[in-house]
């Protein structure tokens, strides 16, 4: 049983083609994150699901019902907006109760549900205040409260955390994840932040230029990206991309460095490839080389400590690559050292099609 089914969806704004034929099915109870760079069509897609934008072509089904031409109010959805969308002239209580009143829910039931939602979000003491008397994080909680009180089939989130500062964003992320576990409802969440996508999602839909680039569980996308775009978009720091040529069973970088060919890849002799290595798959050389790892001598260029980990830049293959080491491995710039690269988890990309081989 799927709560949302989209087929062949297109959206045009004048001559601009924002959504180019998307098919998507979201199973019941799943947390799906639509992620991609700005302008990829993720917000448009969400707004079309909500009925705030009219589909130019295609079909949207919610709960097995065709709602392509239905009003937003007839779609059994609740939505949390980027700028909270709280009514400044209504108290927190009335803001949360707004949707229930609009749907003529009995007064007693409204009170019970508003209080339950407020308890869940820890905003019960704020119910009589006006939105302008709240902090950013509190406003966001109210906005979420207004959605969950509705008990809708589908919950939509449009970049709800992008206006919060970093600390609050982390807290609210945990909160949203907890809510999903408690409520067990189908949620669709739009963000441009890949960390939010990785941490929250049961399934990520990565969009690019109005099309689905890749779709799957976060770890699937992280470990088995289908394209260079996906590989580069997910993960922090970004994956290193090195131009290389396949020669005699090895990958040869532009500076002549020879690395062993990762196993099981269909490449021909002399083929130009792009080698992708995640910063996490590079380590300081340990006591003995692990199987599938290759040892390379490098010169440290730049060191950026992040506290628990440290990001280190070093020249390799005619470019500067970045590696993530444990903090106690700290090395000073200019120092010569050796690193181990895990070639088993490296990827090869066809430079023409930009797809992973």
């Amino acid at each position, binding site marked *: 049983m799927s709560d949302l089914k989209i087929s062949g969806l297109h959206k045009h704004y004048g001559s601009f083609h924002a959504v180019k034929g998307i098919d998507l099915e979201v199973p019941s109870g799943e947390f799906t994150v639509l992620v991609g760079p700005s302008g990829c069509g993720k917000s448009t897609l969400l707004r079309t699901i909500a009925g705030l934008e*009219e589909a130019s072509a295609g079909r949207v089904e919610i709960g097995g019902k*065709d709602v*392509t*031409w*239905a*009003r937003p109010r007839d779609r059994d959805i609740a939505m949390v907006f980027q700028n909270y969308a709280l009514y400044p002239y209504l108290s927190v209580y009335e803001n949360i109760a707004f949707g229930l009143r609009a749907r003529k829910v009995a007064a007693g039931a409204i009170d019970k549900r508003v209080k339950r939602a407020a308890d869940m979000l820890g905003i019960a003491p704020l119910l009589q205040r006006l939105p302008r008397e709240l902090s950013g994080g509190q406003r966001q909680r109210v906005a979420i409260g207004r959605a969950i009180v509705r008990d809708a089939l589908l919950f939509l989130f449009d970049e709800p955390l992008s206006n919060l500062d970093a600390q609050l964003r982390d807290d609210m992320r945990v909160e949203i994840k907890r809510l999903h576990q408690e409520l067990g409802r189908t949620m669709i969440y739009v963000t441009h932040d890949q960390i939010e996508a990785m941490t929250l999602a049961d399934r990520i839909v990565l969009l690019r230029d109005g099309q689905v680039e890749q779709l799957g569980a976060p770890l699937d996308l992280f470990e088995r990206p289908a394209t260079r775009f996906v590989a580069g978009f997910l993960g922090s720091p970004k994956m290193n991309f090195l131009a290389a040529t396949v020669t005699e069973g090895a990958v040869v970088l532009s500076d002549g460095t020879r690395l062993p060919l990762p196993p099981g890849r269909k490449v021909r002799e002399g083929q130009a490839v792009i080698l992708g290595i995640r910063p996490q798959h590079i380590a300081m050389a340990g006591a003995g080389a692990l199987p599938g790892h290759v040892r390379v001598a490098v010169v440290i260029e730049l060191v950026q400590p992040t506290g628990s980990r440290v990001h280190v830049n070093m020249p390799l293959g005619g470019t500067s690559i970045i590696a993530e080491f444990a903090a106690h491995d700290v090395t000073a710039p200019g120092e010569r050292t050796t690193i181990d690269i895990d070639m088993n988890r490296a990827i090869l990309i066809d430079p023409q099609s930009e797809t992973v081989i």
Partner: protein
Amino acid sequence: MTATAHPDRNFKYWLVSPAIFLLLLIGLFPLAFSLVVSFMRITMLETDTSFAGLVNFTQLFKDSRLWGSLFHTALIIAIALPVELVLGLAMAYLFLDKMPGRQLFVSLLVLPTIISPIVAGATWRLLFDNRYGPINQILGWFAGHPVPALWTVNPNLVYPAIVFCEIWQWTPFMFLILLAALSNVDRSLTEAAEIDGARFWRSFRFIVLPAIWPVMAIAILIRGLDLFRIFDIIWALTEGGPGTMTETISIYTFVQGFRQFETSYTAAIAFLVIVLLTVIVTWAIRRMGLAK
């Protein structure tokens, strides 16, 4: 197959339709009606609907009273508008900085703008009375002898009387708008100019004026339009007299239509006024850089 059109598609047209209907009824209809009637020979006493060609329009060019009334209108605009603007601006500067009781001063100064123009005219008619009015009395104190000026009759004094009343009533309007505009000018800009040693005039010309111009231009446009159709104050003070000396275009149109009952000819005048105003306003909007 379910519906293939958005259920709220016509909502926006429902919203505008009553307003548009009313505007067509009262706005566009009279324009078309004037145009049709202006080609006939109708007067209130005679309903001759035969086609008169351009008779009424050629008549317009020979009508010295019409051109006189246009000249009177232009004269009043040319004097009153700049005075209101400069005086309003000076007053706005006077109250720009905070001072105790400012709100009270502003509230009192705005009073003349709120009262009906016809009442403003009536009030000044009382003030200007040659014998029992206070103005001649006050002038007498300064002159040292009784001043029996006939403000609403004496050809030399009727225009000053009208313009005084007009300025009294509408300078506060300019003042209020310009005060709001000046308050919105970023203080750090003028202060920076002051530190750089710029004189008041320079900082006004190059910093303040560009900042308040959009608002000022609209205020000028609104007042200019109102002055073009000035009617009430003159009706109360002089009724266009003595003779036709203070007859403005609005007064003249009214007299032709409702005193002389020249229906078709009045329609031609009304049409001329609309065309004239459209041309002037379009020009003014372009000239003042208000077009989007």
